[in-house]
């Protein structure tokens, strides 16, 4: 006799709202005329995200390991991760909805007459909205999934829309499509590794439930656990773009439409670190001695590689891609710390980094010439003279990435370094500060280009942002400023939410 599984809809409601809205979005694509689609899609997306935020607020004090038959664990940290993802997506969707960043007709071959006709109609694909919502839903699930199968499903649910979105750039479409293909192929490999690792873990523990894996530690030959951890880590570290699994990052960041890059850079990091933290803190905590040395080495090379290679970049999006690699390295310190402080620091760091990143990519999408966005740094020279405000805001965000005091980035770094120091990973802290010193160089170089160099004739201009991206950029910037000066607001919250149910 088959009985229906009991689901606690209340706890799952934030995800259900997002997925429901995404499905609705697909139906709208099928049944609504072209003229109204964009507006309706945007309304639905924003409405769903707001509703999800509200729901998360409602359930913020609830916990359950059986929200969906042991597959989903709703706990304080999980709710916080979901909250960050939805909040970031809300800001990102304003940027996504804004200018003509997306291709008019994705199916048209680049350079064909079909494409020209579609472009002249001044439309863009509105499927981006349901795709983004699916990605957001998948990310939310990824951070609360508590068995390996659900984790894998969530991973695919949020990755597939991102592969598509990365290829939908309106301009330089071949570059965009190449990025999408590269992302897809490498992502597929990474997923395969993840699955392979899961199989080993299942073989070792006889279960796919993360908490049961933790209980099984030491029960059999550790080599299988070790192999499982390694292969699963490959899949996860690919998503956070840790070295040596980072090679897709610069290409995809550069090729994808800029608002999508911002969305991806911010939200994917949160989702992937959410899952990593849950798996390592809950599932592999007892096998600490197996994975900690390896993850430490990866953290070190990620921090140093990201910071050093970013120096050589001449494209602002590629530079931020390498900077995001370096930040992944810093965030790994939170994983290695394996303590409540480490978790709380990671929550703070992800929140502040996410908003800074979205604001930065929002600004990048404003800097244009007649053919579209200009991400070549050499053409950014003298921007400070032409649009002092935009250049000043961007400089502030860069200082935030660099971790200068009075920005949110500094508090995040401080928190995560303290946690690592406390867990006796002092050498990692030293590498971390050295990498920060190296990283400061390329952030500051951009400030020099914008402010201390005279504009050349062919230089670019900053378009007047529409009200939507203005709201998005202002919100995100204010949040990073506020968190730099009054970090207590979030630090206390992240401390009280730093709790993963085992």
């Amino acid at each position: 006799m088959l009985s229906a599984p009991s689901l606690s809809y209340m706890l799952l409601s934030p995800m259900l709202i997002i997925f429901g809205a995404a499905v609705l979005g697909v139906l709208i694509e099928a049944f609504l005329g072209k003229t109204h689609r964009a507006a309706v899609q945007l309304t639905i997306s924003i409405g769903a995200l707001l509703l999800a935020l509200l729901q998360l607020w409602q359930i913020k004090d609830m916990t359950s390991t059986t929200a969906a038959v042991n597959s989903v664990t709703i706990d304080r940290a999980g709710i916080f991760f979901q909250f960050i993802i939805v909040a970031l997506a809300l800001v990102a969707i304003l940027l996504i909805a804004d200018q003509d960043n997306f291709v008019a007709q994705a199916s048209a071959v680049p350079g064909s007459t079909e494409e020209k006709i579609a472009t002249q109609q001044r439309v863009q694909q509105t499927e981006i909205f349901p795709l983004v919502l699916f990605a957001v839903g998948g990310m939310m699930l990824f951070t609360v999934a508590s068995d390996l199968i659900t984790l894998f499903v969530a991973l695919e649910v949020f990755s597939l829309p991102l592969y598509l979105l990365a290829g939908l750039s309106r301009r330089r479409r071949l570059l965009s499509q190449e990025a999408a293909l590269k992302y897809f192929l490498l992502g597929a490999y990474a997923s395969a590794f993840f699955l392979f690792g899961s199989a080993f873990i299942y073989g070792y523990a006889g279960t796919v439930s993360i908490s049961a894996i933790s209980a099984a530690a030491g029960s059999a030959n550790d080599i299988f656990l070790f192999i499982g951890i390694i292969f699963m880590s490959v899949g996860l570290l690919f998503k956070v773009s840790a070295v040596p699994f980072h090679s897709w990052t610069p290409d995809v960041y550069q090729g994808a439409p800029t608002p999508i890059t911002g969305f991806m850079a911010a939200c994917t990091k949160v989702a992937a670190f959410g899952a990593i933290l849950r798996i390592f803190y809950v599932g592999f905590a007892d096998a600490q001695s197996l994975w900690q040395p390896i993850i430490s080495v990866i953290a070190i090379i990620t921090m140093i590689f990201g910071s050093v290679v970013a120096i050589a970049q001449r494209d602002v999006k590629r530079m931020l891609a390498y900077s995001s690699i370096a930040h992944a390295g810093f965030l790994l310190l939170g994983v290695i710390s394996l303590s409540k402080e480490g978790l709380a620091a990671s929550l703070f760091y992800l929140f502040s980094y996410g908003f800074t990143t979205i604001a930065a990519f929002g600004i990048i999408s404003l800097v244009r010439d007649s053919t579209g966005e200009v991400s070549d740094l050499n053409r950014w020279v003298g921007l400070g003279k032409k649009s002092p405000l935009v250049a000043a805001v961007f400089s502030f965000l860069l200082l935030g990435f660099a971790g200068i005091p009075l920005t949110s980035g500094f508090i995040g770094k401080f928190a995560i370094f303290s946690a690592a120091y406390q867990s006796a990973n002092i050498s990692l802290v030293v590498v971390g500060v050295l990498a920060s010193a190296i990283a400061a160089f390329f952030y500051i170089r951009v400030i020099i280009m914008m402010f201390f160099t005279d504009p050349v004739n062919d230089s670019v201009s900053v378009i007047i942002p529409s009200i939507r991206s203005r709201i998005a950029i202002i919100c995100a910037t204010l949040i990073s400023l506020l968190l730099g000066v009054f970090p207590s607001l979030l630090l206390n919250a992240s401390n009280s939410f730093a709790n993963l149910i085992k």
Partner: protein
Amino acid sequence: MSLLTAIGLLPLISAGMIALIPTRNNELIKRATLVATTIIAISSIFLAVSFDKNSDQLQFVQKNSWISAFNINFSLGIDGISLVLILLSTILVPIVILATWNESENGRWSSKVFYVLLLTLESLMIGVFAANDLFLFYVFFEAMLIPVYFLIGGYGTGNKSAAAIKFLLYSLFGGLLMLASIIGVYIISSNQIGATFDITQLATLEIDNQTENFLFLGFFIAFAIKAPLWPFHTWLPDAAKAATPGTSVLLLGVLDKVGTYGMIRFCIQLFPDASKTFTPLIITLAVISIIYGAFMAIGQRDIKGLIAFTSISHFGFITMGIFAMTTQGMSGANLYMINHGFSTAALFLIAGWMISRRGSSTISDFGGLQRVTPVMSWSFFIAGMSSLALPGLSSFISEFLVLVGTYTRYPVAAIIGTLGIVLAALYILIPVQKALHGPIVSGNENLKDLNLREKIAIAPVILVIVFMGFYPKPVLDLINPTSEKVVVNAGFSDPIAKVGK
């Protein structure tokens, strides 16, 4: 809110108000800034008057919780050393503004930006000397770099953006090393006495030797970069040459003092044992700085470069005095910070006027200025004499105290240091002879002497130099109790009985 906090906030508030004045209104902006900074200077003198100099406790204490998650407080309070350095900063700022009235007009941005940056910097300078919370200190320490960076890069001359970035990267590098140490101290405190950043409490920690040495080095390297000690000095001459004279005054006169101040406040107070371990090394570096700076100064053709290298030599003296760990040395070093601030200010300001009049900064382009511009030449002469520590002028007493204080513990270092005084005579007298005396070099015949505004600006500086040369007691009274406290708390006693002052 204590008077101290109010004085610290005033520049920031003034900056906000000046930002509201329309950019075109140049004169108004300058006057408003001058008035504001003069008021701040006067209130800080008032602060000094109401300071109880017999107490070695922190005064004007203000403490509010800032980041409760890490037990970080917005905690300000001053002792004698902090007070005199705050006085130095607040007094120099209006002088700089008056002396370099038109400096801000040739920059990349408007004058308004210049003065907003300057006022922001003043707030941060006061904050850095007044902070009692290690984290707060670090925030001021790092945040200070940003306005200076824009002041050098936006308003300087020559290779300014390279100099600005070099300055910033050196300082950031040191700052980040210090951050690692700060985190270390913080974690140790949370294991021993409960997490805190309060400097007085941190001084009571028991740290094992090896850890203490590493933590000490993190702090020391940051400060040795700031108050450039050989071999961390290379950013300074570039920055000083590129910056405007006014910025250079604040950079060398005040900002670099944060380094020596940090050595006293943090290196010695938090890590007395490690300080002992590293003293021989640091004294050696200090002596090298004294001699190296002096020789490099002798070889300089550029007048700003000359002043920069003399400062490196002087910072060597200050560091030597600090790490001699005697009360005379410590008092001397503290007094030296003030005196160096004023004499460097005078040198830089006058050099700035000379350069802007002549259109060149090469020493040999000047010549015979004594006859053309007597007031300017005499002022330069007095400032130069103070820099070479002529008895009767301010630097003499401090240099003497440093050498006496060092001699009682490290006679060899003191004797080699004395060689620095001889070299000082060379590096000051040669340029004085080249630039002021001798026949009038062609092109200099029609140079104008100081105008009234410039005379008003330089007069108080010269006055302080002369006054402090004859009667340093008011400042020494403020400095001595704290200096003694630092040396005693670090576990040292003077090798010989105290000499009367």
